[in-house]
């Protein structure tokens, strides 16, 4: 029975880990494409060709080695991104660029197809089946050196709960931005934007103080009620216990001060009377237990003294 449980637990853990791995890859998005490149970015070989930019939407590094990129929905494993290349590990919120130049022998980031004749680009998980992201190429919209990309990096704008609003998600970009953000390259830090609205920090102070108060007020209300409930419960218990002993004493919540006063009185009484409180059964506020220690144990002292002969 125990073995069965252990196996079940291990299977759940393994399955969870597999799902977690798949989830990492599922954080990747096709972010921008350039179909006809005559006067744009050049690759390491000095050639200009179309490119596909992927974006890691997560806040953890994702290794895309073993995943696939294809332009053919009937052949999902057309180009496998080689495993073992450190460059396939895409850092959090970073981009990676693939050259669609039909020259895969030129390295990991050169695909075995070009974009001019492609209708769609698909990014496939390492299982070769799961489509992580796909985008149809609107050839009619794209002139030379004009890229098509997500308006906000990695973001899908949803039309409803299930469907993506493609026109709000993707668009022809005003300039190409390979390996950088499509949106907000020149964006100011949030603090500076906030300062324009609130140059003296007044709005910030009041908003923040409101949140601090809100947090602690909620905590106050919760614990006020828990305290009340707790007092009610302990009163009921005390009443029940008292009913068992026939004599019902009106209970009042004993405060810590009362206990402190009793303890102090006891302490003063024993000190004044020169009493000691080492006897058994005596009520005491002093520590009476003695911890065993080999240093004070008699066993270790009952040894013969060395005798000089």
């Amino acid at each position, binding site marked *: 029975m125990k073995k069965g449980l252990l196996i079940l637990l291990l299977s759940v853990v393994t399955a969870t880990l597999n799902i977690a791995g798949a989830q990492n890859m599922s954080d990747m998005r096709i972010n921008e494409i350039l179909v006809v490149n005559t006067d744009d970015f050049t690759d390491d070989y000095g050639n200009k060709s179309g490119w596909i930019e992927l974006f890691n939407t997560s806040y953890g590094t994702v290794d895309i080695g073993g995943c696939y990129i294809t332009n053919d929905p009937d052949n999902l494993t057309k180009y496998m991104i080689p495993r073992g290349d450190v460059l396939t590990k895409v850092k959090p919120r970073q981009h990676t660029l693939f050259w669609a130049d039909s020259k895969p022998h030129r390295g990991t980031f050169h695909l075995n197809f070009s974009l001019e004749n492609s209708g769609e680009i698909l990014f496939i998980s390492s299982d070769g089946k799961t489509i992580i992201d796909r985008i149809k190429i609107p050839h009619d919209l794209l002139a030379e050196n004009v890229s098509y990309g997500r308006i906000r990096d990695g973001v899908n704008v949803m039309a409803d709960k299930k469907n993506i609003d493609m026109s709000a998600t993707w668009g022809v970009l005003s300039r190409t931005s390979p390996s950088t953000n499509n949106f907000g390259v020149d964006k100011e830090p949030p*603090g500076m934007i906030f300062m324009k609205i609130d140059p003296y*920090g007044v709005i*910030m102070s009041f908003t923040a103080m409101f949140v601090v*108060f809100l947090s*602690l007020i*909620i*905590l*106050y209300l919760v614990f006020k009620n*828990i305290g009340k409930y707790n007092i009610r419960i302990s009163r009921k218990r005390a009443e029940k216990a008292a009913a068992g002993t026939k004599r019902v004493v009106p209970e009042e919540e004993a405060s810590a001060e009362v206990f402190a006063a009793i303890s102090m009185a006891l302490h003063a009484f024993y000190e004044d009377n020169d009493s000691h409180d080492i006897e058994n059964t005596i009520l005491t506020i002093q520590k009476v237990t003695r911890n065993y220690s080999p240093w004070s144990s008699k066993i270790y002292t009952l040894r013969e003294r060395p005798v000089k002969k």
Partner: protein
Amino acid sequence: MENKGIFSLLTDNLETFLQYTGFANATPGHILMILIGLLFIYLAIKKDWEPLLLIPIGFGIVIGNIPLFPGLSVGVYEEGSVLNILYQGVQKGFYPPLIFLGIGAMTDFSALISNPKLMLIGAAAQFGIFGAYAIALAAGFAPAEAGAIGIIGGADGPTAIFLSSRLAPDLMGAIAVSAYSYMALVPVIQPPIMRLLTTHKERLIRMKAPRAVSQTEKKLFPIIGFLLTAFIVPSGLPLLGMLFFGNLLKESGVTRRLAETARGPLIDVVTILIGVTVGCSTQADKFLQIKSVYIFMLGAGSFVIATSAGVLFVKLFNLFLKEGNKINPLIGNSGVSAVPDSARVSNNVGLEYDRTNYLLMHAMGPNVAGVIGSAVAAGILLGFLT
């Protein structure tokens, strides 16, 4: 000929050696910083001002300001040096949550649970943070820098380090030293403000004794407290999570060993590391800037605002409380989260006016609420400014 050669070799080597010594590389800035470090050590030993903080920081300042020949890979800012590796805990911000774990494991929230309205004082005192933020903005600091400076008013060293490492890493040394220095100076800064803002009659208010808190309530507090605060301010998660986790270790009753490690050896180790490395980070060339002077001034201002806000809030609160339930405004100062120093200050000032009026247990309520409040405030600043 041979003798002359040996002599010249020796002279050359000695010259090179001299170039490497601190004497050849010393600047007035280094000497000034070393003197400041020694002053910290003096204050800790002679005056007993927060020795657990000032000794490591003071000695760290001395270590960090030994004039170095650059490129020896020993300085705190030289990548790969031992000090640099230890400094990562400050830079990456993983020491502060560990300190919070220890604080959680050593804090008894009973005072707060028995009288939850004291939490509001902890919230009011956070006004010091945002008051200093507004002043720093007016003084010309960028918003992120102003946020990092403002957090000094929370009187919480780990939180100050955590937030400044994210908002203004360049100012972290000055902010951390300022925060810890003013925390050590709580017994000096707060009493005059408390006396100024209260009447004699108010200082004599006797508060109702706190009720006994059940073990169940103590166990529930870290769980509910964490869920509520973290849901409201998720950006404060590292600090809030560790604080309440540490408290659960203490109160659960079944993880005594873990709690003892967290509040004992672990917090001691991290305190040593954080103190020394923060001290080291005050290398003269990075630290001695006009900005540091402003930071120290704003830090003092934030403490004054925080203390005043706490005391005045209690006075305002008392207007709505029935006779017998009133709060002594002398515990208002303890809303700043310098645990337990500010609570001790409340108690000592209270005893000056009534030798039988012990405020310590009452003051511990706002004091620990201040820890929660400052972590929440840090989360808000992170959320708004990054």
